């Protein structure tokens, strides 16, 4: 088994996969706590479906670098979804459901109507559940991922306390003059970035799992915001690494394997939390 692993690790694309996997897992877990606590768990899900729709448009338009289309579209939707949080006729969860299934249907429709590929079902499946292998990752993809991850990490560390402030008590934050809207917008933009990043790894249906599972697991055991954040980041990285390695050895789909490991970790943390 170790032989098989070291053989695989000698291929550059496997190493790329590990780097990208770890970075995506790290970034996606950071905002998990905030999203879960703001009751926005499903925003990741909604946005990833939007990303799916955007990807369909990009492939119909035959854009080679699909990120150019997906990123702005997802960001705009993220901003719209967070904006509709309060005082609107369509409440937050309903708005997310609407946008999410709408984008999903629209995307599939477009792919069906205009696709030139002979293996449509395969294309759709890999967009929804992540590619079965990482062969498609190029050096450019990896660099893009590294740069975006560094930006996300830096922004998160710099605004860590502000994110805590607007998550714990938005009204208090506003009352003492913190510009809560700006920080909510920042949170939305970071989520959109993370989702676009994670789209290749786990596919659009499984992204929310990467975002919420580590946070929920950490919340079972730890008692301060800082401990929960650090624990969910570490846990997410460990789960992603384990998942990728298992998928290499057992030949299982990468995205689904990582999520399965996350679910198992959640079970373990639940038991620890009770004990």
């Amino acid at each position, binding site marked *: 088994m170790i032989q098989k692993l070291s053989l695989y690790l000698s291929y550059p694309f496997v190493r790329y996969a590990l780097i990208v996997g770890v970075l995506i897992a790290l970034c996606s877990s950071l905002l998990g706590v905030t999203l879960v606590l703001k009751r926005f768990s499903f925003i990741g899900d909604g946005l990833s479906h939007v990303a799916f729709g955007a990807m369909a448009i990009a492939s119909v338009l035959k854009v080679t670098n699909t990120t150019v289309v997906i990123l702005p579209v997802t960001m705009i939707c993220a901003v719209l979804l967070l904006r509709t949080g309060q005082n609107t006729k369509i409440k937050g969860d309903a708005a997310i459901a609407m946008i999410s299934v709408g984008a999903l249907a629209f995307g599939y429709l477009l792919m069906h109507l205009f696709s030139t590929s002979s293996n449509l079902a395969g294309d759709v499946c890999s967009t929804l559940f992540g590619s079965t292998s990482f062969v498609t990752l190029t050096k450019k993809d990896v660099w893009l991922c590294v740069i975006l991850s560094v930006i996300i990490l830096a922004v998160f560390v710099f*605004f860590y*306390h502000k994110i805590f402030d607007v*998550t*714990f008590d938005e009204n208090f934050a506003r009352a*003492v003059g913190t510009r809560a809207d700006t920080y909510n917008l920042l949170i939305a933009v970071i989520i959109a970035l993370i989702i676009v990043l994670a789209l290749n790894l786990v596919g659009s249906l499984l992204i929310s799992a990467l975002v919420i599972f580590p946070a929920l697991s950490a919340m079972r055991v730890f008692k301060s915001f800082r401990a929960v954040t650090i624990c969910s980041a570490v846990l997410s990285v460990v789960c992603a690494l384990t998942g990728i390695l298992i998928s290499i050895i057992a030949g299982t789909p990468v995205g689904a394997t990582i999520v399965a490991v996350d679910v198992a970790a959640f079970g373990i943390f639940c038991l620890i939390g009770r004990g």
Partner: protein
Amino acid sequence: MAQITCKDLTLGYETGVVAEHISFSVEEGDYLCIVGENGSGKSTLMKTLLGLTPPLGGKIETGDGLRLTEIGYLPQQTVVQRDFPASVREIVQSGCQARKGLRPFYNKEEKRIAEEAMDRMGIRQFENHCYRELSGGQQQRVLLARALCATRKILLLDEPVSGLDPIASADMYQLIRELNREGITIIMISHDLGAAVQDANRVLHIGKNVFFGTRDEYLASSIGRYYMMAEEEKF
């Protein structure tokens, strides 16, 4: 000069007016109690004072060098907070967020302010405990400590004893009384008319009829007498 002066305020949202013709002023060291029926606009008034909701009409002026962001605010608990994983220290410290500005971390001075506030509220021994595991009364003390980090002048309390048992409520009123004696202006919204009016030196009653005056004037007015009677009939 009064710390806060409101002139003929009209409160409400885009959807409609909630309350109008509200005028009152708060002097340094006052203990103002805001009472009124459900839906009379008490919470809206508080949001307007905090600058969360702009007034539809009228004016809010501040004096004595008070800025609107220097008001310490004790909000009602939200659903989010009930299962929020945060330590007491983290929450109290967040009261210094305005002082901190864009600096990414809290400095020594801000940590000291937070520690002082915890000492004052008697919750220093819980500083590393999880907020959601504290009792209702202790949670209110944490939020009060946070409000104290944000201000030295004026506190706005939104139903500070809602959800507390009678002993914790009495304890909370005692704390508020002490802070008021130390010179901090108190503005409090309350349902608990009897207890509230006992401590307050001024009363603002909003609803169909608006009343603003000292406590004794309120108790002597027709609207105040009517309300105190209803309060006594509860028992």
